[in-house]
């Protein structure tokens, strides 16, 4: 075990002050919420995501292997996606994917 010494200054590596600097500075902590509000916010975000990203739900459920009721979840995901398609909520997702695909096909992509 090498000697342990804390009296050094001027290291090439991270400055001492940086070690304990909070990643979120005080000025960015002004808008605060309670744990309950965080939960509500997360649930709302998840639901909204479920509305607009339903195209990826079926493929996600296909990857659920050891989960109980996986077949039921897969059917529910497919039905949910079909319902979102009927409403038209899948259109933004499909339009963006289509544009990106077209962009890449037009030679905007990179190395082959």
């Amino acid at each position, binding site marked *: 075990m090498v000697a342990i010494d804390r009296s050094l200054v001027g290291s090439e590596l991270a400055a001492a002050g940086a*070690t304990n600097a909070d*990643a979120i*500075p005080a000025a*960015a*902590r*002004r808008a605060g919420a309670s*744990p309950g509000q*965080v939960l509500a916010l*997360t649930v709302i975000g998840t639901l909204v*995501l479920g509305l607009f990203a339903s195209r990826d739900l079926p493929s996600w459920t296909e990857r659920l292997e050891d989960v109980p009721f996986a077949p039921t979840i897969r059917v529910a995901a497919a039905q949910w996606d079909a319902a979102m398609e009927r409403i038209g909520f899948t259109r933004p997702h499909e339009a963006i994917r289509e544009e990106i695909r077209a962009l890449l096909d037009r030679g905007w992509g990179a190395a082959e």
Partner: protein
Amino acid sequence: MLFPTFDFLLFFVAVAAAMTALDGRFLAKKIVLVIASYFFYAQWDWRFCFLLAFSTAVSYGAGRAIAAAPGARRRRAVLTAAVTVHLLLLGAFKYFDFFVLSTNQFAHLLGLQHELPFLEVILPVGISFFTFHGISYVTDVYRGDVEVCRQPVDMALYMSFFPQLVAGPIVRAAYFLPQLQRESREPIPVAAALVLILGGLFKKVVLANYLATGLVDPVFAAPTGYSGPDLLLGVYGYAVQIYCDFSAYTDIAIAVAALLGFRFPRNFNQPYRAQRLREFWQRWHISLSSWLRDYLYKPLGGNRHGRAKTYRNLMITMLLGGIWHGAGWKFVMWGALHGGGLAAERIVEPWIGRRPRTSAGKALSTILVFHFVCLAWVFFRAEDFDIAWVYLGGLGSGWQNGLQQVGPFAVMLIALGLATQFTPPDWLERASAIIGRLPYWGMGAMAGIVVALINALGPEGVAPFIYFRF
């Protein structure tokens, strides 16, 4: 379980629900977080939970033993034993087969036929991170920098807390354990957390993933098929990819911890705007570079014993920092380049100064440091030494024809990634102030829409984070 997946989102909703239900009962919250963290870790391989538990038990026991030891010699013996156990764990799981391979190759060179057998163990994800947590805890207890942890659940949470478990940041005990003594009553910085999560998702899902699949992977797989300008953009692409990938992970980890009421330290600070290599290491993976400084460079003697020993200590620190990233000579080379670069910078510092003074000097220094870092990234990213040398050799050819295969989309992604290095230093505060004007339900809806947008913009499927393999 990766951050940018539905799996993680549902897991986080469940944890957030538990935190809400247990508000005011801090011990119960901590127990639930430990269980959640082990569940999170078990998604990779449940058997590694025993390894994590063992590492935690060693750290906890050693801390108590150091605190109870009657004399300095006994305390030192406990510290030595604990650090040795941690390093043996890391060595057995991460470096044993590399050691065997290198020994066998050396034996072949000497004409010996006998080969040592390989262990062929799977690398437990996150072992480099939780081992460093354990080592820093026992060392800090020994030094008196942190109070000994008397609550097993606190120790278990410190070692296993899921946001940082598999890819950092490396959070010091002195920073995190005091947060476990009493429940924080300060409001959760939800706007800043959302900015970090959404920014992190964009960096990972869009920038890093497209650059990986569309540019970096093919270029590094067969560099002989590309011109010099293509290869140059390939390594720029990797510089942006690894930054976006790793900083995205830590941004999301910081945000998830914040949403659960905990603080994490900063891990990145626009590293590619550094004007000196020394400064680069003050901005890149700060939690690792400060760990190496405090637990390796300084104990080696740091800069106390003259120039020659300072250079030696820098080289040893960066070589070991390199090999921390992976068991392979290419990582040793990466560390050697950085160690040598830091030493060289120190040598010429009397002539060039600690910082450039003019605007032109600053711009030139930033460009030079960036290209030196890119040179080292070639070894870091290439499959092996041979590919790295071929890659570097190819950089000099085909310039008369310009870019042959790299398209404008990749150039745009690189430019966008590099632009993140030059945003105002207080961008997080500014963005948080804007989002913070929304009611919390509005923030949730906005986040859902932006995540859906990022999901649609990115390629299908999510590649694992680069630092998971370290």
